[in-house]
């Protein structure tokens, strides 16, 4: 699998992402500068976490207009899988590849802690190593993760199986929402389920000794699907 990670000025989890991808696939992802207009051939394009352009103006808003984004949108439309985590999710919504928006956390504070996620759909190239309904533990670290979309969009997302993950309690029974996201949505897919945006950081949950290995299955699944 050849993965490309796009580096924006202010990205800061690109190495965490690269390590998780390399551990799963055995090959080192290529890091590409946002200012490049040429995008190398890739099986997977990743927009990592961070504060692209300092999150000034609005999270992801300026990054969505980086030269490289035109090529990414084109590839995504032609079916190349794209994964956006945290700031990467924000950029994907700003670039119009995913619907909705990420607003300021309901608490108005940055939040960094482990959360539990319920897997809503495992029939995708990203989540094939999970079971539907499975509860996984991964950390969040964001100030603007409060997902919002209008009712019609939300109903469509749910109806089309495009909600990837929802925040939940450790047992999966109750709602434990760290940021006020509408319908506890933590991650969503595009229509073809080849673009995934999520606020939590599976790349920081790939080693039980560091807190959790529940994110590893996501990368293993991607690597297997794109091998």
């Amino acid at each position, binding site marked *: 699998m050849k993965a490309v990670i796009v580096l924006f*000025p202010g990205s800061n989890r690109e*190495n965490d992402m690269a390590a998780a991808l390399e551990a799963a696939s055995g090959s080192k992802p290529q890091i590409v500068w946002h200012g490049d207009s040429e995008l190398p051939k890739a099986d997977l394009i990743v927009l990592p976490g961070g504060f692209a*352009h*300092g*999150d000034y103006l609005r999270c992801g808003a300026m990054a969505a207009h980086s030269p490289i984004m035109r090529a990414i949108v084109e590839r995504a439309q032609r079916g190349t899988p794209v994964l956006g985590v945290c700031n990467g999710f924000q950029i994907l919504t700003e670039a119009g590849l995913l619907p909705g928006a990420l607003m300021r956390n309901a608490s108005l504070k940055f939040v960094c802690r482990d959360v539990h996620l319920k897997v809503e759909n495992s029939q995708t190239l990203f989540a094939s190593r999970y079971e539907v309904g499975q509860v996984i533990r991964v950390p969040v670290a964001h100030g603007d993760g409060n997902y919002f979309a209008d009712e019609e969009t939300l109903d469509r997302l749910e109806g089309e199986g495009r909600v990837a993950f929802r925040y939940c309690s450790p047992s999966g029974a109750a709602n434990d929402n760290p940021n006020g996201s509408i319908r506890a949505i933590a991650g969503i897919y595009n229509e073809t389920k080849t673009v995934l945006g999520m606020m939590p950081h599976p790349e920081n949950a790939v080693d039980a000794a560091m*807190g959790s290995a529940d994110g590893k299955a996501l990368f293993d699944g991607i690597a297997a699907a794109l091998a």
Partner: protein
Amino acid sequence: MNKPERSRPVDAALAAEHGLKGDEYKTLLEIMGRAPSLTELGIFSVMWSEHCSYKSSRLHLRKLPTKAPWVIQGPGENAGVIDIGGGLAAVFKIESHNHPSFIEPYQGAATGVGGILRDVFTMGARPIAIMDALRFGEPAHPKTKHLVAGVVAGIGGYGNCMGIPTVGGETEFHASYNGNILVNAMTVGIAPADRIFYARAAGIGNPVVYVGSKTGRDGIHGATMASAEFDDKSEEKRPTVQVGDPFTEKLLLEACLELMATDAIVSIQDMGAAGLTSSSVEMAGKGGLGIELDIDKVPMRETGMTAYEVMLSESQERMLMILKPGREEAARRIFAKWELDFSIIGRLTDTGRLVVKRGGEVEADIPVDPLVAKAPLYDRKWEPSRKRPVVEARSMKPPMSPAEALVKLIGGPNFASKRWIWEQYDHLVRGQTVERPGGDAAVVRIAGTEKALAISTDCTPRYCVADPREGGRQAVAECWRNLVSVGARPRAVTDNLNFGNPERPPIMGQLVGCVEGMAEACAALDFPVISGNVSLYNETNGKAIMPTPVIGGVGLFEDWRAHMSAALRAPGETLVLVGATRGWLGASAYLRDILGREEGAPPPVDLGAERRNGELVLTLIAARWVSACHDLSDGGLAIAAAEMSLAGNLGCRLEAAPPGLTPEAWLFGEDQARYLVATRNPDLVLGAAAARGVPATMVGRATADGALTLAGANPISLAELRRAHEAWLPEYMAA
């Protein structure tokens, strides 16, 4: 005094307004041989401020041990450096941003983090962890809540954006900080041991290059502000607080590290306190050279700035470097890629003088050597603190049962969980955080190796005020113990000395006592001081803070998997108390929080016992004979056991006090050099202790009943204990 009238003559009165004393101005006149220009006066005033010259503390700082075979660079550079093997070095320093954080908490704290990060990456290191030691006024004080909210948001706002995890620290509340909070930030970085960058300028004719943000009028005279007492009008100083831009700093970090990977740089220095003045003077001074600066070339974000303003600005996210000849264009390209300003603003000269030009006119022409070498040095008068009487535990009348006292303590401001704070810090970015905030010490893995570092910041100010020398020894010993508790070999410390007005002999006595105590402990524990910062004049209307010498310690793991936590692991395991218990309640948290008495001599620190007991614990952890370990400090045995229970979500039972000790002295005494360990092999542990002459006794066991039980009392459910522990801070902040 941001912009003194140009027409006003430069004289002793204007010098006094700049914070220069009569004698200091006389020395200035002798050095210059004439009246200085306004710009020259400004340069002298910041270079000779307490903040930059350490004029009150320098004489005493010399007493601190700074050497060890593993020390690569001790105090005197932007940060200290130790060898951690495998061709790598750890680079670290702590620095205060107390005065600005009180005036403007968000920006004050944010720029404090920004400054200490720059100190570390200036040396060529990639920062891997931030720690923060915070002290606020009493919770009931009308400003405290606002300051907590602002400082925490500011630290998070800066560190989170930089992508450097904030992995721990400490937070304390006390009335002595009502008018002067303490914000001490520490950064640890990793660099190749043979690629450390220093500030010493070299190469006559080499270009002096300015990179980073543009210069504005912010922070002019920040160093001078940080060298004066507060009064009721201090909040009028808000304009002297700088404004941080972590995004630009992130770009600056990446650009500097990219340039450092080439061999273009001769030397580099960040523009921190006193900005362009102190960076250019320090580089030239260390190199024994002259430096000529053309202010017209400095990137500015405001028009009409004078040489005086540019030289004194403390605008953030700026660096000064000396490049090798011919490398300018390659360097310029890197900074252009990261969209940062890059400007050649001068040259090194052989004149030994700092020459500053603006619009073709010479605005300052100062001999560098005397500016540095003749900086004032004071042997200030000091009085030793009066010894306090020992408080006998038997004389106390406990107002509540030990179980009630435990719940009250652990739910009070100083013991309550600081989760509300650390969850606002990204403590996981970089993916190397092994031990998260809340334990004895943070543990951070070094990417690409098996190694890890343990980091802890510690101080017990109530001991320092009770007996400065003992308090100084204790601060070092507790930090050392915290590193030992997670299984790391303690290596070196950085210190942040926070005190009141040194011109008052009792305050100076606190400084001298604390430093001497620290020196003894550092020497006894092979724990040299490799960097640090002094913050004086932490007083408002004549009321000083408690003496607060914060110790930031770093320990090393050859294999990160060897780390230990305080969390109880298995019901049935035996709890062994390592170290001797006399039941010392003087100056204890119990005495303060339960009996409302802040008095008594603090627990004495036996450095020989600290060393012996700590070495035993390191052996026990390395042999895997213990499954959990926690150091005993504030609140003694009962608090340690409760914290181990909460961390492991397992109950425990503590045995009754041994004969001769009251239950309170046994459970809440703060005798030093003690650890609580959990083991399934108590005989092995007790045998090893006996062989080393270390006192050790079985004091209880881990249980499966979900409760903490003190002998002879009803069990306290973990749920109740956790509620008490977790509730206070969020409820306080929400109220």
